[in-house]
Each structure stands twice: as structure tokens, then as C-alpha cells.
């Protein structure tokens, strides 16, 4: 009985999937990571000018900030490894190497008293992809293997489990966020003025600090009745995230609602979560290899 249940769980966790699905995720997530790193380069290189080094995660190994030259080197190495990761070049080495370097570089960026929660899921996804055979298709490695006469990869559990793991990490992160709200504030988080107060406070500090804020959010906080329903919907969305794993229809509905949630956060708090807003956080829940974007790659050579 137990072994039958274990086999069923194993079959669910390790479904057979085409290599192109995992490859598509490598291209999407790796490509995003490279663009993100490039866009954040001025920030990464300017960190030493900030006070208050408070190491988090793996960077806790450091007792003091790194010299600016070392910060420059680590950022450039991350960028180069990221390119190799996305293109699938020497992935057996660059896959795990980029995952670890990205973890290090972004942990260092988060070690100045402010944790950018927009980056957590990206790093978790890259770590999972780096431990997989995500470059067996649609990669420079695959092209080289084909030239050597290697047979093309066929659908396998080897390509299914990383996709499932990425999906689990996505829904897990939303669920954990929902649990934190319940643990810290109880059901009052959804029923009180708490969300309204946060939106007002967050917009005001951004406004006074000379940054973008949301005039829409600033206007909406004048309408108190709106916020308990919005808070309830947000909390339910987070706590019910695991339903997205029940099948494609559930995944579609939940992903759409989660995307709308992030769009709402952007609209009324001016907090931009690029990873989910571009759909990448939810990509593991879908057959992304069928996207129009990949049609050219999907053509037989």
C-alpha cells in the first residue's frame, strides 16, 4: 500500500516531459536573469557606497564588504556565466556555476539592509535549472552533440522533474507568504484596515524620498471599504496557490489571478515584480515550448 502511494508520488513528481519544455524554461529564466543582471549592473557596482552592510544567506560568510574590484569581477562573471547558461554552452559546468554565482551576487545585493523579494523566486528557479539537464535541447551543447552524431533526446522523466520542481517552488513561495500574514497578523490581515495603512505608508515614503509612487493608490486609500475585500482576495490567492498543481485549468486560473494580483500591486503601490509580471514565475505550470517565441527553434533542422 505504502509503496504504491510512494510510486504514485514519484510518478507525479517525475512525469515524462519533452526536453524542449525544460530547454524553453532555461531560455526564458536564464535570458531574464542575464537581462536583469545587466539592468542592475549600476546598482551592483555602486553598493560599496552605501552604509550598513548586513549580510544575508550565503554572504553571511563575509565579515565586511568586498573591495570594489571584487564586486566588479563577480558581477562580470555572473553575466558571462548567465549568457552561457541561457545559451546552453558547457551547461554541465556553467549550469550549476551560474546558479551558485547568481545566488552569491544577488545575496550580496540584498546584504545592505534591504531584501528585494522580487529576486527570491528567480534564484530558486535558476538553482533548480542548474541541477538539471536543461541544455539537452535548443542549446549550443545540443547542436554540438548533433554534429557528433548523437541521437536526439526523447521525452523522459529527466526533463519532467525539474519542470515540476520549478512549479512547486512557485506555488510554495506564494503559500509561504500567505502563512506569514496569518502568523504575524491572523485573519485581521484580511478583515482590518491593515492593507490600506500599508498602501498609504508605502506610497508616502516613496513620494517623500523623491521616487515614483502610485497616485492611484494614494487616491484609493481614501475609500476604506475597498481594502478588506482586496486583502481577503490576496490572502486566499496565496494560501490557495497549491491548487495550481491540480491540473492545467487550475494552473491557468490561478496564474491569471496571481498575475492580476501583481499588476494590482504595481498599479496601487508602484512595486514592480518583473518575474511574475512577465509570466516567468508561472511558466513552469504550462507547456511553454509551444509558445510562438520558440516556433523557429522547434522546426526540425
Amino acid at each position, binding site marked *: 500500500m505504502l509503496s504504491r502511494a510512494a510510486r504514485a508520488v514519484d510518478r507525479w*513528481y*517525475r512525469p515524462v516531459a519533452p526536453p524542449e519544455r525544460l530547454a524553453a524554461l532555461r531560455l526564458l529564466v536564464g535570458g531574464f536573469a542575464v537581462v536583469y543582471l545587466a539592468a542592475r549592473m549600476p*546598482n551592483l557596482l555602486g553598493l560599496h*557606497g*552605501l*552604509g550598513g552592510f548586513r549580510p544575508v*544567506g550565503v554572504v553571511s560568510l563575509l565579515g565586511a564588504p568586498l573591495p570594489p574590484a571584487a564586486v566588479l569581477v563577480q558581477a562580470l562573471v555572473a553575466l558571462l556565466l548567465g549568457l552561457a547558461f541561457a545559451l546552453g554552452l558547457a*551547461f*554541465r559546468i556553467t549550469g550549476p556555476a551560474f546558479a551558485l554565482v547568481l*545566488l552569491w551576487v*544577488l*545575496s550580496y545585493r*540584498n546584504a545592505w*539592509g*534591504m*531584501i*528585494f523579494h522580487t529576486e*527570491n523566486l528567480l*534564484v*530558486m528557479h535558476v*538553482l533548480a535549472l542548474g*541541477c*538539471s539537464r536543461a*541544455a*539537452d535541447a535548443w542549446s549550443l551543447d*545540443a547542436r*554540438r*552533440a548533433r554534429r557528433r552524431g548523437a*541521437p536526439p533526446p*526523447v*521525452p*523522459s*522523466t529527466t*526533463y519532467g*522533474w525539474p519542470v*515540476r*520542481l520549478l512549479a512547486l517552488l512557485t506555488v*510554495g513561495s506564494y503559500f*509561504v507568504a500567505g*502563512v*506569514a500574514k496569518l*502568523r504575524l*497578523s491572523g485573519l*485581521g490581515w484580511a478583515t482590518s484596515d*491593515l*492593507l*490600506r*495603512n500599508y498602501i*498609504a*505608508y*508605502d*506610497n*508616502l*515614503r516613496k513620494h*517623500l*524620498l*523623491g*521616487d515614483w509612487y502610485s497616485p492611484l493608490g*494614494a487616491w484609493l*486609500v481614501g475609500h476604506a471599504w475597498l481594502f478588506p475585500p482586496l486583502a481577503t482576495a490576496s490572502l486566499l490567492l496565496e494560501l490557495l496557490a497549491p491548487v495550481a498543481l491540480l491540473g492545467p485549468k487550475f494552473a491557468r486560473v490561478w496564474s491569471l489571478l496571481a498575475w492580476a494580483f501583481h499588476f494590482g500591486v504595481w498599479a496601487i503601490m508602484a512595486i514592480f515584480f518583473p518575474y511574475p509580471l512577465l509570466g516567468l514565475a508561472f511558466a513552469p505550470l504550462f507547456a511553454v515550448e509551444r509558445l510562438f517565441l520558440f516556433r523557429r527553434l522547434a522546426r526540425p533542422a
Partner: protein
Amino acid sequence: MSSAPPPTRGPAPWPWLVGLVLLGLSLSPMLRPLGYDSFPFSSFPMFAHGRKDAVTTVHRAVAVLPDGTHVALPPRALGSDEVLQADVTLRHAIRRGKKASAALCKAVARRVAADPAHAEAVAVELLTERHDALAYFAGDLTPLAPPKRQARCKLPR
């Protein structure tokens, strides 16, 4: 990782090891003390703490014009293009006292002096203000108490 193509059902230990470690770490903040926050494994406690009102203390850097008018300085004047990183930098300096606040004020003044957008500015001030954010957005811009000046420094010319 493109050696021989894998069989349809590959071996299980590696997938399970990676999955249990990563998923276990990502869910572990639920078992940690309340408000646990780290990177990349976090309980995502932002906006989860109880906040019974919208009263807030904000530290800010402003440019002072010749007529004494204050102009809000953008986060990059504090050394970061990220507003919340700039906020933490200000908080950190002010918490550490007058010497640290003065040092940050000078660093901000150097950046402002080099920025043509603030050519009219004569000084920089670091201020602490207390506001009711709901009242502020309802039109009452007056701080709950007079702003406290933490540091002031002239612009180097």
C-alpha cells in the same frame, strides 16, 4: 549536460535529493521565528506585520534653495537607484548618530553639486518627518510634528 540521451524513466535519487533540499529550504521559513527574512529563502514578511494606523516616520534628503525652499532629492542622490536601499542608507546613518549623518550629508552634497538638475541648490539637509499617510493623501500635508533636522551641509562649489 548533453552526453547520452537519458532513458524515458531516469534514476530517482538525484531528482528527489534536489527537490527535497530546495523545496524544504523554500518552505522552512514557515517553521522559523515570526517575521524571518533572508535571501533567497524568506517567509516574505513585508506588509504582513500588524499596522494599526498609517502614521509613519520618514527620513529624507532635501536640497535647500537660496530662498530656503526644500526640494526632495531622488534616491540616486543617496547612492542608490533603488528607493528602499536609499531609505535604509538614510535610516542607518541617522540611527548611528550625528557623525554618521554628517558624513552621509556630505556625500549627498557632493552628488547634488555634480548634478546640473540641482544647480540652484545651496545646501543639503537630512530631515526626519512624522506623517499620517492617510491624512497626507487626503490633502493635509502638514507633518504631525515639526521636521527634525538631522544634518545640514553646504554644497561644495
